């Protein structure tokens, strides 16, 4: 019992091995393309598009940007005194944190007496440095403790877009760990809100950063659509605040002149920077061009919103799950393409699923998950469409296979036909000669003539076989190479078979017979070639049988009738009747034909004496004839 099941499993596997191969190759190619980074560009474009398409968010009013927007007025580098003045003024309005996004080289020191050190007393002031380019590090002004310093280095992806931000940096030379400006500012702000929100190591990922229960997902080299992010240090995927004016922007001049109400600075994060476009170039980001202080503001906003408002950060799947996801869709596409649905339904299905995939991954991104959409779409569309198209091709293939099978059957039929021709022709002649030889009433000359004829007959059959093979003609060969056109009406055709068979010289019995014959004409299209051929062949056989076996027959009835959808050829003689229980080749042929044409064959004793032999076949209007 187990074996058949196993066999069918093996069959399915064998089928799918062939079937699944192209699809598996397609999946493999997509996976390979993704692994080698060929898809990174596309995936990032999709990511950017999704980010840009997010619904508008409210501005983050916890952050205020203060900018030196006119370096011609202030001078550049900015005189130290001006910076100190601005900070002191801001400080007097009790902000939560002041971030100074101006590094040392942008500040003109006054007579080598670093006035900035006077600001060290402000514990809520974070100063910035540039550290990652080892050759030209610009470290923070001396005297500030580590937790009041943060680096402001930013990097763009290869395509020039900025999508991520570094949060920490481990320097193996000094064996020290530096925090980013954004982390320092965020921590200071968060602790001011809730002292428990101190920066600590992640729980799920110990190398990640965590504020309270909010762990900042650490970007890996291959996170999301990236293959070569080359991180190593904690990085954050930026989820820009999607607002036309996400942060309030004021100028240093506003602070000095007091033209606006500075009370709004209380408890805020105030980031002081140079915003004059002469030194502050815009950077490409998924949401447009932004300058670096704004980027820092976005990062700080992203972190504190995540901690305080539970605004989702961007998580990515483990690489392994990403590939499981991709391959699964590829396999589903193969199965879908291989179903028996119509192509129309398959196409609708493919499009629907594609739409669901896109909108689903968009919604997931809103919820904080960046899942691969480009490779999934690729395998889905390639395999889905490919298999849908290929299924049709497969259908064609299968029909071609059927055609082949038909040809084989036709060949088989031909072999049978040739055998029949031999059986009805030369073999009959031979039988008759043998009988006469046994009876010793065959003169030598006659034997010679008969044998010569036999020789000719057999040769002619060879000719026919060749012709038949060359072009399957719609003809029937009787003895002596007489060819009948099967397209002639059935009554005429049967008459010809009847007439030609009865003329055979070897059946001397026919000469004295009284024959009643009648062949009923029917609509030409009711019978196809095969049916015609079988009816004719049957008639020939039946008449031959009368010639051979119907001893003492005086009457012969040969008729064909059409009655209630059945066409019947009937041959009745009044000879000695059926003598042998053995079935001859002719009878076997008739039975076979009857079963092939779903007809009925009957050979039985007639009343009061003789033999009845008849073949009935059901007629339905055929599509082909």
């Amino acid at each position, binding site marked *: 019992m187990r074996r058949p099941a196993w066999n069918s499993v093996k069959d399915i596997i064998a089928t799918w091995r062939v079937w699944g191969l192209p699809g598996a190759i397609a999946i493999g190619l997509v996976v390979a393309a993704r692994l080698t980074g060929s898809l990174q560009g596309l995936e990032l474009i999709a990511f950017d598009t999704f980010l840009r398409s997010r619904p508008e968010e409210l501005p983050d009013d916890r952050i205020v940007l203060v900018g030196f927007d006119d370096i011609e007025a202030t001078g550049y580098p900015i005189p130290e005194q001006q910076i100190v003045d601005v900070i002191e003024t801001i400080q007097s309005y009790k902000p939560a944190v002041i971030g100074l996004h101006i590094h040392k080289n942008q500040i003109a020191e006054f007579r080598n007496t670093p006035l900035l050190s006077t600001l060290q007393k402000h514990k809520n002031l974070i100063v910035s440095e540039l550290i990652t380019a080892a050759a030209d590090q610009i470290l923070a002004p001396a005297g500030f403790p580590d937790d009041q310093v943060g680096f402001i280095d930013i990097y763009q992806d290869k395509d020039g877009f900025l999508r991520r931000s570094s949060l920490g940096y481990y320097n193996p030379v000094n064996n020290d760990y530096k925090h980013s400006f954004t982390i320092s500012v965020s921590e200071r702000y968060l602790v001011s809100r809730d002292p428990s929100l101190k920066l600590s190591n992640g729980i799920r990922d110990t190398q990640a950063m965590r504020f309270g229960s909010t762990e900042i997902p650490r970007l890996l080299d291959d996170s999301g659509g990236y293959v070569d992010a080359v991180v190593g240090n904690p990085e954050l995927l930026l989820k820009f605040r999607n607002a036309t004016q996400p942060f309030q922007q004021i100028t240093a001049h506003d602070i000095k002149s007091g033209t606006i109400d500075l009370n709004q600075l209380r408890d805020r994060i105030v980031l002081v920077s140079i915003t004059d476009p002469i030194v502050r170039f815009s950077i490409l980001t998924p949401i447009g061009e932004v300058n670096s202080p704004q980027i820092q503001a976005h990062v700080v906003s992203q972190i504190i919103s995540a901690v305080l408002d539970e605004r989702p950060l961007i998580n990515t799947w483990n690489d392994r799950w990403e590939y499981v996801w991709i391959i699964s869709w590829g396999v589903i596409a193969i199965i879908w393409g291989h179903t028996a649905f119509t192509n129309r339904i398959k196409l609708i299905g493919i499009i629907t699923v594609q739409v669901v995939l896109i909108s689903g991954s968009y919604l997931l991104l809103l919820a904080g998950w960046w899942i691969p959409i480009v490779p999934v779409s690729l395998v889905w569309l390639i395999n889905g469409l490919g298999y849908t198209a290929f299924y049709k091709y497969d259908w064609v293939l299968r029909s071609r296979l059927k055609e082949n099978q038909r040809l084989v059957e036709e060949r088989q039929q031909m072999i049978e036909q040739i055998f029949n021709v031999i059986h009805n022709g030369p073999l009959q002649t031979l039988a008759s000669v043998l009988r006469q030889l046994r009876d010793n009433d065959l003169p030598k000359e006659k034997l010679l003539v008969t044998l010569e004829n036999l020789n000719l007959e057999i040769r002619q059959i060879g000719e026919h076989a060749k012709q038949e093979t060359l072009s399957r003609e719609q003809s029937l060969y009787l003895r002596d190479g007489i060819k009948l056109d099967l397209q002639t009406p059935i009554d005429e055709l049967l*008459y010809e078979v009847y*007439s030609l068979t009865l*003329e055979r010289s070897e059946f001397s019995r*026919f*000469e004295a*017979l*009284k*024959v*009643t014959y*009648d062949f009923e004409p029917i609509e030409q299209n009711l019978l196809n070639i095969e049916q015609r051929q079988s009816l004719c062949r049957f008639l020939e056989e039946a008449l031959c049988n009368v010639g051979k076996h119907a001893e003492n027959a005086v009457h012969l009835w040969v008729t064909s009738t059409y009655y209630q959808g059945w066409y019947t050829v009937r041959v009745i003689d009044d000879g000695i009747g059926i003598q042998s229980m053995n079935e001859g080749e002719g009878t076997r042929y008739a039975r076979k034909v009857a079963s092939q044409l779903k007809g009925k064959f009957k050979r039985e004793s007639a009343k009061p004496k003789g033999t009845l032999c008849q073949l009935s076949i059901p007629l339905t209007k055929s599509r082909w004839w």
Partner: protein
Amino acid sequence: MSESENLKILVVDDHEVVLGGTIDLLKRQYPHAEILTAQTVEAVQQQLKANAANLPNLVVLDLSLPEKIGDTAQAEAGIRLLRTLMHDYPTLNLTVQSTYVKALVRIKPEIDKHGGGFTVADKGLSSKEMLVRVDWALNGITHTKDIRRGRMLEIKPDWLNVLKLAFYEGLQDRAIAERMNVSERTVRHYWTKIQDILEVYPEEDKQDGKNIRIQTEIRAREEGLID
């Protein structure tokens, strides 16, 4: 047969000489007859179309004919023509001349169905015999003895019914027609066919002064068609 004033005969033969000979023969027998001629299948069809209103009383046809002028003569073409003629003019009287009349076996069913006279004249027949066949055809008689297979006797079930109704039940043609649900004309047509297979032909019987129906009955019993 008594000479008819408006007798019209179409003679078809592709050989000028044979055509001339046949015409001479017919002219002698029927001096007042209008004789039309045709040498190709095409010409025959044209002639018949031209005389559609007043068809020839008889067509004397050679089997071996060319389709049109210039073609070679083939028995196949003649047989095809014969088929069309019997189909298009079901009561046309026909006499077929040929050196190989056996070729007609193939269209025996059509001949059986044909309502007009149909006689076969081998070209080897004497002029006298030939004229007899023509005369029979003109009289609607069927004579196909020459294309019969050996001593075999072939009969249609309908003809057998006519024999049985006539000789078992003694019915007249009209009553037979009613019983068989056919026209009286068809019954008469059956009789000519029956008489043909039983080789009961008028001339011989007239000479003997015998009744043709009685002669038919005797022959049918001889052949075992009726008990």
